[in-house]
């Protein structure tokens, strides 16, 4: 079955979630990937939305993080102060799944604005939502976004959510309790932070993709792993499940 670059990105993101994990899900690409994981290899994935719905089991993709289907199918529905204070903050959640408008080499995330003047931004984006504390507290953070010069930038215009700050030791200095982003999944491949330098390294690429294209789509001189792996193409079953989810949305 042929597929688009967005589809292999969603499938790759879904594969990063193991069955039985607890996952704090943002809306958009993260929600699509998390629901695809539940529909395929991870039926016991626990989806947690910031609306306070814990263990939501939607059979169609919700448009918002608070659609009725989430509350109706949840194991528990708690208040918004409770979801952040009791569930996210102490580090109970395995995976935080985030999107981004801009990302830098240390996986710092901008979802606030484009431009260099906070008071008069060129483009005003929605802002932080739950992301700063998800990025700070989850046991693992996965970021999913499309890769281009616009999104992969030398310096983000605003640090909405901290990845590795200015490099090694920054998270510890800031007192961030979770270990930080472990994987960035794009429509061109997968990047992971170097354990020593915290800088993103291209570790996996899609079938038919070229390293040159990935480097050309990055706003800094992107490092490439010596052990660059090729990601398996989406199976027919994965594509069918993804399209069923999208079709029902």
């Amino acid at each position: 079955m042929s597929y688009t670059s967005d589809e292999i990105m969603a499938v790759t993101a879904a594969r990063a979630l193991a069955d039985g994990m607890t996952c704090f899900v943002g809306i958009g690409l993260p929600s699509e990937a998390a629901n695809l994981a539940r529909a395929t290899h991870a039926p016991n994935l626990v989806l947690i939305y910031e609306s306070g719905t814990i263990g939501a089991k939607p059979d169609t993709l919700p448009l918002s993080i608070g659609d009725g289907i989430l509350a109706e199918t949840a194991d528990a529905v708690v208040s918004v102060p409770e979801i952040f204070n009791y569930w996210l903050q102490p580090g109970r959640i395995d995976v935080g799944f985030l999107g981004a408008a801009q990302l830098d080499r240390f996986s710092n995330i901008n979802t606030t604005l484009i431009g260099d003047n906070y008071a008069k931004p060129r483009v005003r984006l929605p802002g932080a939502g739950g992301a700063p504390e998800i990025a700070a507290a989850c046991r693992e953070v996965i970021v999913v976004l499309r890769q281009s010069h616009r999104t992969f930038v030398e310096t983000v215009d605003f640090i909405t959510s901290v990845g590795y700050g200015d490099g090694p030791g920054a998270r510890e200095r800031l007192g961030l309790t979770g270990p930080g982003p472990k994987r960035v999944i794009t429509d061109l491949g997968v990047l992971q932070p170097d354990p020593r330098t915290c800088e993103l390294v291209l570790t996996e690429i899609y079938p038919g993709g070229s390293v040159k294209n990935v480097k050309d789509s990055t706003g800094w001189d992107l490092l490439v792993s010596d052990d660059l792996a090729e990601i398996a193409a989406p199976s027919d079953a994965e594509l069918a499940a993804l399209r069923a989810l999208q079709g029902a949305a």
Partner: protein
Amino acid sequence: MAEIVTLAEAISASVGDGDTVAMEGFTHLIPHAAGHEVIRQRRRDLTLVRMTPDIIYDQLIGAGCARKLVFSWAGNPGVGSLHRFRDAVERSWPVPLEIEEHSHAGMANRYVAGASGLPFAILRGYRGTSLATQTTGVADITCPFTGETLTAVSALRPDVAVIHAQRADRHGNIQFWGITGCQKEVVLAAARSVVTVEEIVDELRPRPGAVVLPAWAVSYVAAVPGGAHPSYAQDYSARDNEFYRDWDAISRDRDAFTAWLEANVFGATS
């Protein structure tokens, strides 16, 4: 003690020009009808407070009611931008909009502090972000027991809280369920409150997971069936996702927005 009145009476009695108004409801139970009534009564210079401004504040901002917005995520969920919000921030239309921006965890805790009668709340958050440098009401604080550095956020104490609930009884006791967001906190943090409800019943029967606010903790109650639309009230209505998608085109253009407002807000009565 809650007074049961019409929506127009409730807004007129509680929302004045220059007030700080928090309309809450996290995707679910958003008090849209009350927002429209504030627009109809042409309130001005409001400081609007809300975690997710959403379509309801896009409308109030585009109608020129707001001087300042206090928020944590200003988008049309799953659709894209709030165009009236962006037009105000990027191009000062129809009037300049000052912003005070937080994270969801920060805003939720600010309401908790307000409800608790405390000047601030403590959380692990903001550290290392640009938010901490741009936003007032965020400061480092040292734990007196462990010496750890944490974050303090100032309490929110709105003049008026506005929420929508499923039910009230004839005394004005309020009951709501499903995704309950931070509505209990915002009502208890505010000096006055307006609660619109789907229906007023003789007796509130207990429901699993429901929040009950006693009548003596609420100022005004008004029956407004469907008052959350295009948001929803669980067990009464479904979220009108089509309207959220349609709002993108309506709100993108100043004239289209103004025409929509004339036809659907000024042209309607509460």
